[in-house]
């Protein structure tokens, strides 16, 4: 990959970079949505 392409690629990915906090919130909300939709049921402890 040329240097120019590398820069372009990292700039594109840079847009999608998300902090750990946001990942944790998004994952927890996605899990809650799956529970609400009935995809995840009876999670034991």
């Amino acid at each position: 990959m040329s240097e120019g392409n590398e820069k372009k690629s990292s700039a594109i990915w840079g847009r999608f970079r998300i902090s750990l906090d946001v990942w944790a919130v998004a994952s927890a909300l996605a899990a809650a949505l799956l529970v609400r939709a009935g995809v995840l049921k009876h999670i034991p402890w």
Partner: protein
Amino acid sequence: MADSIALPRLRPISPQLHLFKLLPGIALLAAIGYAGKLLEQNISRYAKAHHTVIPNIEYVLWAIVIGLAISNTVKIPDAFLPGIATYEFWLKAGIVLLGARFVLGDVVKLGSISLVLVALELALAIALMTWLGRLFKLRPKLSSLLAIGSSICGVSAIIAAKGAIDADDEDSSFAIAAILALGAIALFTFPLIGHWLGMSDHAYGMWAGLAVDNTAEATAAGALYSDAAGKIAVLAKTTRNAMIGFVVLGYALHWASAGQAKTISNKASFLWQKFPKFVLGFLLISLLATAHLFDKEQLTSLANLSRWAFLLTFAGVGLRTNFREMTKQGIRPFIVGALGEVAIASLTLVLVLGANRVFHL
């Protein structure tokens, strides 16, 4: 909150991050956490079957102790480190999911009480640590980092402040080591003191959330006491975490005015950047639960998901605590931290006992 001097800090995750690199460490966290859970269950079953009385040791403590035993006796292979560092992710996801166990009204009521206590704790902790730092002739920025770490959110706050006040790596390492070592001590001493004083679950949880610095340790110290205490500890600690931006901004402005840090042009953007977003996730889930979006069985499932996430976190707390690494950081910051923490723990205990009498926590 959570970081390690022995483990690499988890960088912002990007889609190109190879997931498989995380798997060995996550599997190790799960194995240790599950081993702790099995130990608790089997010891309890054994005691019942043999009609003997064995003190119930919660899975939380087993997971931490197994992690501590591994990290302090063998060198953890590098392949496991990225996955172990995800314990901070599990902690935050667990806190967001825990929101389902709170009715928003309780969050507002307990959150308001803890907000007042947090404000008092912040003022006391910052004043005390600054004074102790001067007394022990610590470098001023190291004193600032210790004050920020002990007043708000442990390691996360120190990392957030490091860039904002242009502190050097050595000072940050000192402050992080002191906060982590003291968090580890609090894990074992707080539940004993709580039981000795006969504290209620709510009062103890509030105290753990106010006085234990790292979110992971505060959550564990609460859960070691009881499930209800763990819930309240997370709520109080989350309120404290929400203050991180304001305190770091205050210090950044102080050091900028002294010409020893960059000036901050956009204060609102700075506050948003430093604000822990998982606090919003916690409130959102609590709001959805209060609006009866989930039925009873779904709420139980969400609570259990939160427990599984915390299980991995507690294993990570043990694994990232390396006493040998901590002792390398020197004794003076540790003494200042220890003196400050003992004083803060005592003062917050008085505050919580006082609030308990007035508000019947």
